[in-house]
């Protein structure tokens, strides 16, 4: 055995190799292989119900770029992201600030805000679907109390995306909040003591001490939530099915439709997936750069 495994410099290397092997195998089979496979079929006319496939070069991509529905889906995804990410993060940070103290009820509030994050999107979406019902739902009943007659939400093309966005903000609030809380608790107490003697308190403390010290965390949560936003799918599938008139059609749902609805164009869907992936990649890198510049 010792002779056959000469590839390893020492015992530790071989231990590391075998320890990593299982998860590497999983990564290979369920991540890397499908990734490359999807790239390869994006150049073919592969279909879900079709035997075999033909290489058709870039025609899937050409067709995609000419499809106004795809661009509509991309635009909707962008609107969704631009609305959800900053608002949810700003609210989460304020919540974290409010809950970052030792009061009797704070653990209960923290749990309450985190519950929607761990609840399944499918069930939450179902509840909100009912909630948004213009006649029987709670949402418009609440608005009526303050004298506003609410829109028909999910069945009104100009309000449906807003409905999806509002729910997403609520559901994601707790996610960034826990990360912000962890970040806040990481700031050494001494720094606040020093700041207290230097005369920084209230908003000035938040502005000059807390926010700058959380810079890294902001970058992290902004990028992670951008990525998560781009992947929005389940609530659209359950609440609106992309409608009415594609007003809530988002990128992943578009891909899903191409692949799993007639005519089941797997090759075309893969091409769309790769374009979305690249756009998201570029966006995340740009965002990371901007955040780094702000940090300094």
């Amino acid at each position, binding site marked *: 055995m010792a002779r056959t495994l000469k590839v390893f410099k020492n015992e530790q290397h071989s231990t590391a190799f075998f320890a990593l092997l299982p998860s590497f195998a999983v990564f290979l089979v369920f991540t890397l292989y499908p990734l490359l496979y999807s790239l390869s079929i994006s150049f073919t006319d592969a279909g879900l119900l079709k035997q075999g496939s033909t290489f058709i070069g870039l025609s899937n991509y050409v067709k995609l770029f000419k499809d106004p529905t795809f661009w509509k889906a991309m635009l909707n995804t962008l609107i969704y992201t631009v609305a959800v990410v900053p608002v949810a993060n700003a609210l989460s940070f304020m919540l974290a600030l409010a809950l970052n103290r030792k009061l009797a009820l704070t653990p209960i509030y923290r749990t309450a805000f985190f519950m929607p994050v761990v609840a399944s999107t499918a069930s939450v979406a179902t509840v909100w679907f009912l909630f948004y019902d213009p006649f029987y739902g709670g949402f418009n009943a609440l608005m009526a109390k303050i004298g506003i007659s609410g829109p028909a939400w999910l069945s009104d093309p100009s309000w449906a995306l807003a409905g999806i966005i509002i729910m997403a903000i609520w559901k994601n609030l707790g996610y960034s909040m826990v990360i912000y809380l962890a970040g806040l608790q990481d700031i050494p107490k001494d720094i606040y003591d020093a700041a*207290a003697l230097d005369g920084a*308190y209230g908003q000035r403390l938040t502005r*000059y001490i807390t926010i*700058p010290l959380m*810079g890294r965390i902001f970058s992290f949560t902004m990028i992670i939530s951008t990525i998560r936003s781009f992947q929005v799918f389940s609530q659209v599938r359950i609440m609106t099915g992309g409608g009415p008139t594609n007003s809530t059609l988002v990128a992943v749902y578009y891909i899903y439709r191409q692949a799993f609805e007639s005519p089941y164009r797997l090759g075309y869907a893969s091409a769309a997936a790769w374009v979305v992936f690249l756009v998201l990649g570029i966006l995340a890198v740009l965002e990371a750069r901007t955040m780094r510049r702000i940090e300094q």
Partner: protein
Amino acid sequence: MAEVILKGVTKKFGKTVAVSGLDLEVKDKELLVLVGPSGCGKTTTLRMIAGLDDPDEGEIFIEGKSMKGVEPKDRDIAMVFQNYALYPHMDVYNNMAFGLKMQKMPAAEIEARVKEAAKILGIEDLLERKPKALSGGQKQRVALGRAIVRKPRVFLMDEPLSNLDAKLRVQMRAELSRIHKRIGATIVYVTHDQTEAMTMGERIVLMKDGIIQQQGEPMQLYDDPVNIFVAGFIGSPSMNLIDGKIRNTYDGACFDSGDLTISLPEKRFGSLASRDGLDVVLGIRPEHIEDAEFAPMGADRAVLGATADVVEPMGSETLLYVTAKGGTQVTAKVNPSTKAAFGKPVTLSADLTKAHLFDRATGLAMK
């Protein structure tokens, strides 16, 4: 008149009593040194004066006003934290300027003050660095600078020189004394280093387990320690403390440790006739024990035969660590021309007019 008064101040953390019934008066423009071993409550005391912690009992007054419910920012106090507590996201300049900016001071004056402090502390070249790019000693000087620029009525300094090398420490000590004289601020200076306490303090307060053991001018604590703890803490190397009993003989009282018998001169200790058999501790400072060869002759000296274990020439004097009869360990600070050598017998002579006696049961000095 920035005097600080603590009346019966107690602070508990759960079951730990960090500070217990502290009565303390820091006079206006005084440099008071708070000294004591680790965990005796020095930092806790400073934090309560600063308003960062509230006392559980008792009250704190600054300029005669009770500080109950007064926020730290309204106390006009600057503190140098034991672990610096610099703002990691600000460069050195802004670390020092921050407090002034919060006061809305004009930028030109801020700059003048920061530059001046940086010059005094020798950190002018570091102004653009972030704290993580500084050494411990540099951080400590920035922390000091941050306090100095504020020109507050009270300075609280928690071991501000502990991380400096010996030379820089001596230099900074002198610099702090000069700053103190020039700006005439009230300073509470915490250290666990008795040398620093002796050299800097106009007055020393020695604490142990949250309780003040003794306070007074440095030489007062050195010459008249009220108990065994103070005797052992003040002075370097520490006082020799030997357990024994008082025994009365036909020519006066003597100290008897079983192996050593040392007569106790009446002119130092008074009559001990009534104390026959009492358990006591005899204390003699190393600097009051000389190599017999160089010691003056005199009635009030005890001569002691011993074997030298360690000989440490310091240049101006030599430290001897010896074992006397029966295994008693003794430290002596002797003339550098001593012929004492490792493993060789040496004869020492102790000046008993400078010796101390403590009641072993109470730990208190016997007068």
